[in-house]
């Protein structure tokens, strides 16, 4: 018996709490469950829900989900590596140098300094809240994955000035370098998001 669209939606609904992020992995799990049920000779239109819940309560569901979650971890690792690797490429070093120069020049004028700070806050908020979910669907996930690297830099940038009446040149340099890194990081985030979008199959 072939499953209807309604049946497929029921499988997807049951799978939703598992929180699988990658669409292709999720689709593969749905297809596997659907095909398994379709191959069951005892499946009838009347007992679909019973069969689905029987599968859901079996070790096969657990194994399938565990495999899918492992795949998600591996895929996350690949994207994280790609994101971090970009800083080591010629392109990445170039982008960082340009943002560092821009941040330094912006501080020479109070208006551009304030504009830079505003842009900084907006970018950080957008990344953390996933405000541009439609255009940057992957950004929120990457921020969650990279939070370990992101948070100390964020603190460094925003809080350093508080502890000193007058910032020593070294501290100014650290603050500018960290701010430029955050800006460059958002550009790398955009590039990683673009890679994610091209790799989405459906």
């Amino acid at each position, binding site marked *: 018996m*072939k*499953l*209807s*669209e309604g*049946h*497929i939606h029921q499988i997807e609904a049951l799978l939703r709490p598992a929180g699988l992020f990658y669409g*292709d992995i999720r*689709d*593969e799990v*749905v*297809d*596997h469950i*659907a*095909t*398994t049920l*379709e*191959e069951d000779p005892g499946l009838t239109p009347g007992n679909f829900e019973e069969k689905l819940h029987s599968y859901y309560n079996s070790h*096969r569901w657990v*194994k*399938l989900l*565990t*495999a*899918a979650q*492992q*795949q998600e971890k*591996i*895929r996350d690792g*690949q994207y994280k590596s790609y994101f971090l690797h970009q800083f080591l490429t010629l392109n990445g070093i170039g982008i960082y140098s340009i943002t560092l120069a821009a941040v330094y020049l912006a501080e020479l004028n109070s208006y551009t300094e304030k504009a830079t700070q505003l842009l900084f806050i907006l970018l950080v908020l957008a990344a953390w809240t996933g405000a541009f979910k439609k255009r940057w669907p992957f950004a929120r996930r990457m921020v969650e994955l990279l939070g370990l690297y992101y948070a100390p830099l964020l603190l460094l940038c925003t809080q350093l000035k508080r502890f000193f009446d007058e910032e020593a040149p070294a501290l100014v340099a650290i603050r500018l370098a960290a701010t430029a890194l955050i800006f460059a990081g958002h550009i790398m985030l955009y590039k990683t998001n673009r890679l994610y979008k091209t790799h989405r*199959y*459906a």
Partner: protein
Amino acid sequence: MNMKNSQLYKGSLTTIIMKLLEENGRMYGYEITQKVKQITGGELNITEGALYPALHKLEADGHLDVEVERVDNRMRKYYKLTESGTTETVNRLAELEGFIKNMQTLVSGAPKTSLEF
């Protein structure tokens, strides 16, 4: 895989997958498990927990390409060998054949006919 022989088959899973794809063109995950079950008469059951990580690893290594199609109200992911996958399949099958030959020799206890020591 069956628990009783999982350790014996573990290292050969990717070779089995690649061999099947070489013979059948493109296949989807569930189809691969059913084909293996059919060929071995139910002796070897590849579980979801073993199959999908192996498929995704082969894909990440560039040995498999993926095609997605809408089939029966859902998206289905088909796997097929790339050019490098085809080459790698030949290499792995040769390696596996050598392994099987050596194991047969060791297990049967047949004396080597070669004069080398």
